Each structure stands twice: as C-alpha cells, then as structure tokens.
C-alpha cells in the first residue's frame, strides 16, 4: 500500500512538472515557442521534452534552455541569415534566376529571327550575337547559380554539423551553475548574437558588451531564468560596471514590459493606464501556476509564429487552442503543409484550416474548433506591432464548419472582383466565414460577374453560402426577441438543429428557386430580368425587387400559379424581412444559369 502511495505521489509530482497550457493565450504561445525552440536546437519533440522535464526540469530550464537559446540566436540564425541572403540574390527581381530566364528567352528570339532571316549579312550579325549569349553569358550565369546552390548546400551541411557538435557537447554531464568563461566559449564558438525583431531593445541583444561575450550572455540569461535578481544585479555591477545597465539597475527584468515582448504593454507609453505598477514576474508566475520560469515563455514567444509570404506581405500566424498537445500537432502539421504548398501558391489560411480540420477529424474533437484562436501580426517595428489581429472562431460558425457536407460546400475560393482584363480577385469562403464576415456581398459580386459573362458560376457553393448566412440571420433575429435567453437549448446542443435546418433549406430552396427558369424560354429575356433584379438587390429595395419579379411573373401564368413556387416566394421573400435579399440572389443565380 505504501509503495502505491509513493508511486501516486511521484506521479502527482511528475504531473506538476509536466508542461501544460495555462489558459492564458499569451503565456501559452510562449510555451509552445519554447517547445519549438528546443525541437529546432536539440531535436526533441514534445514527448521527449516532457520526459526530460519529468526527469530533470532543473537542468532543462537552467542549462539546456539558456545555452540552446544563445546557440539558436548566434549560430543557427547566423547560418539562416547567410542562406537567406543567397536566396534573395537568386529570387529577387533582376536576380540571377530572372537573368537566366531572360537570357534564354533572348536566345530563343534570336534563333527565331535567324530562321526567318533572308539577308546573309544580317544573319551573320545575329549569329554572332547568339553565340556570345550561348557560349559566354548563359554558361556564366548558370555557373553562378550552381555556385550559389552549392553554397546553400554547404551552409546546410554546416548547420547540421554545428548542431550535432553542440548537442554532443551540451548533453554531457556538467556543473552548469559554476562554469568559467573558457568553458562556455567552447559551447558557443564564433559567438555573435543576431537581433531578433521581437526583442531588439532587450539588454541581451542591444548591449555591445554582452552581445559578443558568450560568458556574459549565458550568465545573464541563466540568472534571468533563475530569477536571481540580487545575483544578477551584483553580476552586472561587477562584470560590466561602466555600462548604462549598471547605472540603471534592473527594470524590465522584474516588471516585464514591451521591451522583452511587444505584446506586453509598456507603462511609459500608457502613463495613465496603470493605477499600480505592472505585475512582477513572481506575481505572474504565482497567479498562473506556471511550471516553468516566466522568462522562457516571454523570450520564446516568436518561435510560435509561422511566417509566410502572401502577395508581398509577410504574415506571422499562430493557431491557439487551449490544449498543448493539440496546439503543437496542429502547428506542426501547418508547417509541413506550408513546405509542401510552397510551389502551389495556396492561400495561407487554406493550409492552416486544412491542417486544423485534419487534426480535428483525426481526434474527433468537435469542441476544439470553437476554442480556437488565430493570432496574426504583420511586422514588429521598434517594438511596436503592426497590423495585429486576434480572431476567435465563434461557436456558431464552428458548429456549422465542423459538419462535413457544409464544410465541403464552402471550401472553395470564389471570384468576386475583376482587377484588370483577365485578372480576377478570389476570396476563400471558409476564411471569410470563420472571421464572421458576410458572404452575401461576395456572392452578389460573383453573380454580377457571371451575368456579364466574365466567369462561370460556382452555383453549388454560392447556394450553400447564402443559405447558411440566411439561417444564421433568422436564428439571430429569433434570439433578439425579448423573451429569448442568452444560452438557448441550441447552444448546448452544438446548434445541431440549425445545421439540420440549413440542409433542409438547401434541399427545398434549390428545387423551388430553380423553377424561376420557367419564367421565359428566351435566354436574353432571362438575363435582362436578372440584371433588373440584381440592381434592385444592390439598392436593397424590396419593393422594387418584388415589383420587377411579379411584373415578369404576371406574364407567365403557369409559373405564377405554381403552388409550391408561389408559397416559397411568400415565405422566403414577402414575409421575410431579415434576409429577403439572400433568397432574391438565389433566384437571380438561377436565372443567370439559364
């Protein structure tokens, strides 16, 4: 019995050490960043990291983390930086790749010209030009490209080599609280910290003394994680006495602010906001019951975000859900998909949502989508966030999106705008839907383009989008009634009734609305009616819409007296003040299809 108790208490202790989310997205993002960083440096996945925390969390937090963090920001980022520069030379405008393409094009043009040329003199001239390009310029450019690619390969090998060496060195048993300068130098050869965007004013990165000294940097970081403020203060006074830090003393080390992480607020920027001082690190740790030192999540924050280039804009995105394992595997899947999709020009959100859906379907966890948040920022400039967005997936949208049929129907990009001749702008419907934006205006523009014969209609998806939106509007209108409660029965039932209602409505509406085609046999007339109706919809004029519709219907007695069509019109348009235009648009789409 005693031994079982012992095992239980050991287990409980282990569980306390376990890395787990706190429920605060900001700290949780940092925890995930920590997992990502450790994986990048040491190759440990979440399970292995958890095992190491269970066996020796002390060593992980005060040795593996600080030394690994410094290794990442000097060696790994250094090599990444070189690779990035070479890639830039290759792929930028007027870069090597473009030059090669242009030269090849030029050669082909010259060959064509020579083939058509009748004049001998002229042909000789062209032939000279061609041989210059073929024998000199093109091989030179290709050689340069080969060299660049070889260099990238070499750098990648170097990275693998350096990482291997580092792992072998750090894993050995070591007294990591009493290390001398020479010993630390061995772990971090050629040390030079590169500034990260997220913490450029942080002392570790912005001081000359510390940036180039692995010893000072390590002790500073280790003491921060240890939260040994007295020791840290003494250390600074002793080792770097003439610096500003020594005069200023410890500031954001005790009260973390935007210097360390731009997502934190800075009291100097908002002097009227704080009635008291910001929270101390110890207070934050205590209130969140953190199982790891607070500076680890604060500093690892940026490792959570996956960056992605889309239409010339860098987007940094992170998907958050309140469970570490799920969050880890979703973000990992996203990374893999991103690599795969590089050549396919897929929208980032398409990749990310597909990863999420994969994960959810695998785990059969419908609850997760509604607990999911998307955090995105474009850039950090001078410790200020540019274009930051926090998006939660509302429960209602999540319940609809989790349904296979509805999700499949929505899962397309729809053309909604013409930018110039033969150039169209697309919007991915699930993104708009999850962000809670109305779909009706998109489908209206889409229908207009179809009417002008610019594009082919995406009828099936348009129908589903419109009916989903209409049903949500009905549902909201019902809930706004004075006697309704905040949490309806539907809420606890994951809106199953609503999902069922949408499917039923799709079935009914697709049949009844398609009857409108019988209004005339003449295609041009139908197009004319559609054009008139769409103008009324644009003006949101129900009276005008019904007037045009019924005047035309009045000429087609058979359709006008069709009982089911007549009833449908009455129910969905005349009696419907919440969203008559949506059903109106479905009629227009049917007319346009001919």
């Amino acid at each position, binding site marked *: 019995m005693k031994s079982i108790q012992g095992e239980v208490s050991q287990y409980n202790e282990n569980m306390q050490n376990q890395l787990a989310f706190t429920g605060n997205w900001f700290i949780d993002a940092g925890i995930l960043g920590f997992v990502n960083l450790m994986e990048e440096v040491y190759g440990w996945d979440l399970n292995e990291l958890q095992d190491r925390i269970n066996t020796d969390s002390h060593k992980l937090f005060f040795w593996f983390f600080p030394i690994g963090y410094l290794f990442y920001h000097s060696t790994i980022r250094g090599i990444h930086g070189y690779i990035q520069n070479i890639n830039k030379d290759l792929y930028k405008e007027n870069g090597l790749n473009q030059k090669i393409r242009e030269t090849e094009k030029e050669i082909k043009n010259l060959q064509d010209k020579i083939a058509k040329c009748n004049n001998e003199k002229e042909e000789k001239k062209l032939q000279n030009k061609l041989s210059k390009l073929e024998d000199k310029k093109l091989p030179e450019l290709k050689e340069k490209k080969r060299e660049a690619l070889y260099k990238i390969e070499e750098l990648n090998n170097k990275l693998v080599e350096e990482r291997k060496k580092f792992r072998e060195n750090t894993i050995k048993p070591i007294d990591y609280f009493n290390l001398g300068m020479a010993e630390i130098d061995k772990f971090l050869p050629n040390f030079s910290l590169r500034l990260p965007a997220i913490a450029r004013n942080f002392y570790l990165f912005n001081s000359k003394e510390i940036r180039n000294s692995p010893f000072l940097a390590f002790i500073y970081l280790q003491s921060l994680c240890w939260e040994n403020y007295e020791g840290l203060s003494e250390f600074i006074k002793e080792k770097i006495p003439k610096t500003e830090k020594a005069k200023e003393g410890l500031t954001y080390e005790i009260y973390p602010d935007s210097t360390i992480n731009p997502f934190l607020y800075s009291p100097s920027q908002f002097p009227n906001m704080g009635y008291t001082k910001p929270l101390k690190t110890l207070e934050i740790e205590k209130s969140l019951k953190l199982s790891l030192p607070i500076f680890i999540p604060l500093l690892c924050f940026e490792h959570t975000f996956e960056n992605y280039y889309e239409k010339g804009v860098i987007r940094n995105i992170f998907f958050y859900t309140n469970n570490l394992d799920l969050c880890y595997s979703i973000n990992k899947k996203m990374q893999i998909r991103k690599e795969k999709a590089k050549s396919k020009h897929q929208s980032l959100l398409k990749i990310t949502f597909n990863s999420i859906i994969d994960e959810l379907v695998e785990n059969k966890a419908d609850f997760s989508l509604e607990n999911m948040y998307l955090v995105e920022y474009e850039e950090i400039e001078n410790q200020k966030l540019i274009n930051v967005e926090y998006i939660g997936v509302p429960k209602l949208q999540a319940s609809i999106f989790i349904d296979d049929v509805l999700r499949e129907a929505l899962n397309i990009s729809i053309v909604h705008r013409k930018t110039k001749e033969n150039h169209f702008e697309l919007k991915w419907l699930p993104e708009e839907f999850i962000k809670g934006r109305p779909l009706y205006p998109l489908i209206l523009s889409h229908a207009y383009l179809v009417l002008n014969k610019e594009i082919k209609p995406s009828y099936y998806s348009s129908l589903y989008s419109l009916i989903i939106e209409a049903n949500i509007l*009905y549902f909201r*209108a019902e809930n706004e009634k004075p006697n309704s409660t905040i949490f309806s029965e539907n809420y606890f039932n994951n809106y199953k009734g609503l999902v069922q209602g949408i499917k039923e409505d799709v079935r009914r509406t697709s049949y009844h609305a398609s009857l409108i085609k019988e209004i005339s046999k003449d295609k041009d007339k139908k197009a004319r009616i559609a054009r008139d109706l769409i103008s009324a919809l644009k003006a949101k004029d*129900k*009276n*005008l819409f*019904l*007037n045009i519709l*019924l*005047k035309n*219907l*009045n000429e087609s*007695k*058979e359709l*006008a*007296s069709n*009982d089911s069509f*007549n009833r449908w*019109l*009455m*129910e969905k348009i*005349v*009696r*419907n*003040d*919440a969203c008559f235009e949506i059903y109106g648009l479905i009629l227009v789409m049917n007319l346009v299809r001919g």
Partner: protein
Amino acid sequence: MSENYWERVIGNAKQDLHLKDLKEAALNSFKDESDNYKQKLVYNLLETVRNNDQKEFFYILIKAINKPKGNFNELWKKLQNNYDIMPEETFVNFAYSIILGIMATYRGE
C-alpha cells in the same frame, strides 16, 4: 420566422395580422375570375405599390371586390380589420401578399 406579422393595439384590444391568411383570403376570393381580368388587375396593383400609393391601391382593390355576388366576404373582413395607413415596409408586405394570392389563382387560360 414569426407567424404574427403585424400587431396593433386599439384601446384594450390587440389585433394580429397573418400575412399567410391574407394571401389565402385573396386566393379564395379571386379563384372564379377570368385570367385576363386578374392579370390586368395585378398589373394595376403592382403599379400602385411601386409608387407606394396606398390610397390608389385600396381604391383599385376595393373597386375589384365590390361585387355582391362574389366570394369576397373573407377578404372584406380582413381589409375591414386591417385597413389603415401603414408604414411603407408593412404596406409593401401587405400588398404583395394580396397580389401573390391573386396570382396563385391563374388557371393558364
């Protein structure tokens, strides 16, 4: 969606108007009329609704149902209860319900 479309209180009495019933009343009233006559009537009524001319709409409608021999009792009752100056949105729904009711009786002659 709510069945009670229009609700008004006169003194202590509350009156409801169901658009569906109104349409049914129109449907039952006009089923014996000829298609050509109804088509013309619908056209005229549509014109008045377009201009939001309530006076003209009721003038034409009442003239059409002012026939002692027809089945207009039900519609008369509905009109008697609800005839009033209405806000535009209400009038539009009211009028189109009647028009759709008339149109539903076309026999395709």
